[in-house]
């Protein structure tokens, strides 16, 4: 493969990644030359512009056909476009939060903060648009590393340090576990390209190694649950969420989690779609019970433990664990609904969670506390915060006319869709949702039923915009989910996800 071949690829399809990469590099360079005291506001604008640019690039690519570069190490298909939109949108909102996060520690590294955010985003985007184990892994690690650092960004804050350290240790172990599993996937098929792996999975030789395949699947899956904060690798989340700066927490709970689901979908579905199970059925069918167990466990742990939390960030950590459990449910359905359901739920989750974190950030900054009591009497003090917060909480709880409900409804469709329908999983989900009512509504109760002595809360305009955007989106998606669904159906053909065009591709480029 020579330079010509390399240049013959349609590198333009990587425009979003290039934009992010370029802006990130630019940021780090500009930051270097900026005076220490100078306001980093322009950097935020620049970063925001970069993300917007990348978003625009993706929207321009909507009509682009499936494109594969270098044996799927980069791949642009509907799936990647759809999820990259989520990643970009989430990061954009988190950027606003980040630029309004007032902490001395952060201030001195604000430029780096934006840089790290964009790098993490880049990693996540690469995860979305690659079908090669190595790229996926590197993307994953890029996201992870950047996140570790961001979690510890308040370096004079013991909690932030501790949070970052716990994150890095858990993350390291998780990476090792994931890799261990992946090494067997690789070993049993001898390929890193997911489509080739899938092809090799049909090798009759593998029938003898059903158990190893199954183990490889489970170990990898378990390792990947780290990113989405689902059982069994979920326990870092509360501690890390609590200690990390609020925007980082928001980033972890939304963007990082989305990326986690992206890699799960990409890796699990393509790799194992044709894999034989122990009894030489389909492996994906055979592992369903285990995924169900994990999903159920996650929901139970998240929702049940959240009941006792007094710290709002910690509560949201458990809530986020629980949400991960919900989103795992469609994985057992194996229907093509899987993608749009997860996509929609993540979209909804993005709005409601970032919205909630916006308010949390505003309040924790003003009250210098993370205790739920900072919400006391919020409705009296600042109804314009209390009402959107209520929307977000209701959405998280899955109450109708919010996006969360439609998302949850979709998940139910996933759980009950194909034969056999998984009633018990749906039941666990609903039961734990009920537990979640208690803690979500507890916040609501604190806001509405208690009297608070705190002052009126002032919201910076950027935050207010995020808040309004999230609140409106939460409601609009709840009332007219077809806006999102039609967009999805209209622009994304999920068949592309399964389309191995590499054969054609190499052919055209290799002569």
């Amino acid at each position, binding site marked *: 493969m020579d330079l010509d071949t390399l240049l013959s690829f349609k590198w333009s399809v990587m425009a979003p990644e290039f934009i992010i990469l370029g802006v990130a590099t630019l940021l780090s360079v500009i930051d270097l030359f900026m005076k220490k005291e100078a306001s980093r506001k322009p950097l935020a604008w620049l970063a925001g512009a970069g993300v917007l640019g990348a978003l625009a690039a993706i929207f321009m690519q909507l009509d682009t056909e499936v494109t594969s570069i270098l044996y799927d190490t980069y791949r642009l298909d509907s799936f990647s476009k759809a999820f990259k939109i989520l990643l970009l949108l989430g990061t954009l909102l988190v950027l606003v939060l980040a630029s309004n996060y007032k902490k001395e520690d952060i201030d001195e590294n604000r430029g780096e903060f934006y840089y790290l955010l964009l790098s993490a985003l880049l990693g996540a985007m690469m995860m979305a648009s690659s079908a090669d184990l190595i790229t996926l892994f590197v993307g994953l690690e890029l996201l992870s590393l950047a996140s570790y650092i961001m979690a510890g960004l308040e370096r004079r804050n013991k909690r932030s340090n501790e949070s970052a350290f716990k994150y890095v240790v858990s993350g390291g172990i998780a990476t090792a576990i994931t890799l261990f599993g992946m090494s067997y996937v690789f070993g049993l098929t001898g390929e890193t390209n997911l489509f080739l792996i899938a092809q090799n999975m049909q090798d009759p030789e593998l029938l003898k190694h059903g158990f190893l395949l199954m183990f490889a699947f489970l170990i990898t899956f378990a390792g990947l649950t780290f990113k989405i904060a689902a059982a069994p690798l979920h326990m870092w989340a509360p501690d890390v969420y609590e200690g990390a700066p609020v925007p980082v927490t928001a980033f972890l709970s939304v963007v990082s989690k989305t990326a986690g689901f992206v890699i799960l979908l990409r890796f699990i579905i393509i790799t194992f779609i044709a894999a034989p199970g122990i009894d030489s059925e389909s492996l994906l069918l055979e592992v369903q019970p285990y995924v169900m167990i994990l999903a159920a466990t996650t929901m139970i742990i998240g929702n049940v433990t959240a009941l006792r939390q007094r710290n709002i960030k910690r509560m949201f950590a458990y809530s986020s664990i629980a949400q991960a459990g919900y989103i795992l449910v469609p994985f057992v359905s194996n*229907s*093509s609904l899987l993608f749009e359901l997860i996509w929609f739920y993540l979209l909804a989750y993005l709005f409601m969670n970032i919205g909630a974190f916006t308010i949390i950030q505003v309040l924790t900054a003003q009250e210098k506390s993370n205790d739920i009591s900072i919400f006391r009497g919020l*409705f009296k003090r600042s109804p314009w915060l209390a009402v959107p917060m209520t929307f977000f909480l209701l959405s998280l709880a899955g*109450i109708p006319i919010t996006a969360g409900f439609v998302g949850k409804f*979709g998940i139910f469709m996933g759980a009950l*869709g194909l034969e056999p329908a998984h009633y018990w999983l749906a039941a666990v989900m609903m039961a734990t949702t009920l537990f979640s009512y*208690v803690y979500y509504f507890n916040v609501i109760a604190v806001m509405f039923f208690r009297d608070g002595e705190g002052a009126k809360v002032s919201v910076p305009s950027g935050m207010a915009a995020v808040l309004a955007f999230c609140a409106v989106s939460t409601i609009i998606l709840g009332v007219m989910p077809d806006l999102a669904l039609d967009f999805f159906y209209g622009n994304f053909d*999920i068949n592309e996800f399964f389309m191995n065009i590499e054969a054609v591709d190499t052919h055209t480029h290799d002569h």
Partner: protein
Amino acid sequence: MNAWLLSILIFSPLLGVLVLMFVPSNDEKSIKWLGVLGTLFPLGIALVVLSAFKMGGEGLQLTEKFSWISYEVFQSKGQVSYPIFYEVGVNGLSMVLILLTAVVSVLAAIASFSIKQNWKSYFILFFLLEMGMLGVFAAQNLFLFFIFFEITLIPMFFLIGRWGYLEKEKAAYSFLIYNGVGSAILLIVFVALFMKTGTMNFEQLAYTFSLPQAELNQLFITKGFKMGMLIALLVAFAVKLPVFPLHSWMVRVHVQAPPAIVMIHSGILLKIGAYGVIVFGAGMFPDQFKSLAFVIGLFGVINLLYGAFLALTQTDVKRVLAYSSVSHMGIVLIGLAAGNEFGMTGAVFQVVSHGLISALLFFLVGALYERSGSSELSAFGGVAKRMPILAGVFLAGGLASLGLPGMSGFISEFMAFLGLFEKMPVLAAVGTLGLILTAVYVLRAVLAITFGAEKELHEARDLTSSERVPAFVLLAAILFIGIYPAWLSDMLRPTLDAILLGLGG
């Protein structure tokens, strides 16, 4: 105009919300009046709807249908779409309940004059609640039904938790969790039905389930599935109704919520349970429903007797009324279990009648509470002396509650039992014991308050003129239905006949 009439009705309470937004939150008087006006507006539209509604017409009327959400699924069969529509319509049954909702809402809004604080948010939530209730009865598909069903939950949570009495938050949570259980089960069932049949429309579902079993097998719909769905539905609505042993939340809510809200709750929200059982249970799974009739009847009788027995020794009048609601909902079940014309009609009559009666009684209890600061029976006595009108209306309400002929309660009890006696005479005979017990506890409570030696109340004034409106309107409605039931039964007949056709076939 007619094409949008029903939607206008459903969302008409939002106008009130909109207007209230622009009223300063400390302007008590205008908020309260706007609150009443805001409920009068839907009532007006409801009357327009009533006039547009062809009495005795078959099937749905004033239907609207718009595409709303659609999921596309690629299956082995190819692309299958799962569309969800915005579908509303009314039949006799829902027309009746919509009217009930509109009327009780107005009266409850008037009763809300006793609310002491935060009137603005109170009425905003109140309107949202009304919208939810109207929507529930007008919805013609599962999805919409569920959405409106849940919409009623949230305002209720706030209304109880913020404006209730001492243990209001506990009650609010109790309400939320129990109803959450119900709606959780509902959601599972609804989605399961949706995924099996690809439709959420009531009529289409009923039609699908009436297909011969051979065709259903292709959709993976077995008899067991149907039965399971029906049982799940019954359990879900049993929470709402409520049916023993799922009633404790309701007692708590009745005791703790502000009277105006209890009027709504007891008057309408509980009825959603009955409505659900009729429309989903009997309407969609007639065969299974029939085979469960005995169980339903049994629970009906248990409810009737259990509620009555517990109401006997309560010392708080609100608790008496709460358990009386449990007991009266038993009659709904009894009527449904009968599964014949009389039973069904009786059940619906009971729904309406209890809606009116309990609204009346809770309204009066609220008025009493306002005058005495207590709802303990022992705090009252000889109220008839200083407040003859209140006492008189209270007595009349009590008598209606115990099924005195000439009042609506009698018609429903009579028909429900008449129905059950055809199918399960022994069970019905056991159930009639409840009629005696009802008389005992109602009189015990009513007489303890109105009769006897007079006790000091801190404010002994008779019903004020604004309080008389709800009291008299409700009493008049109770008498009207009691004396001229044909009005109601004629409206209901086509709808119930359609359901009965399924049950009978």
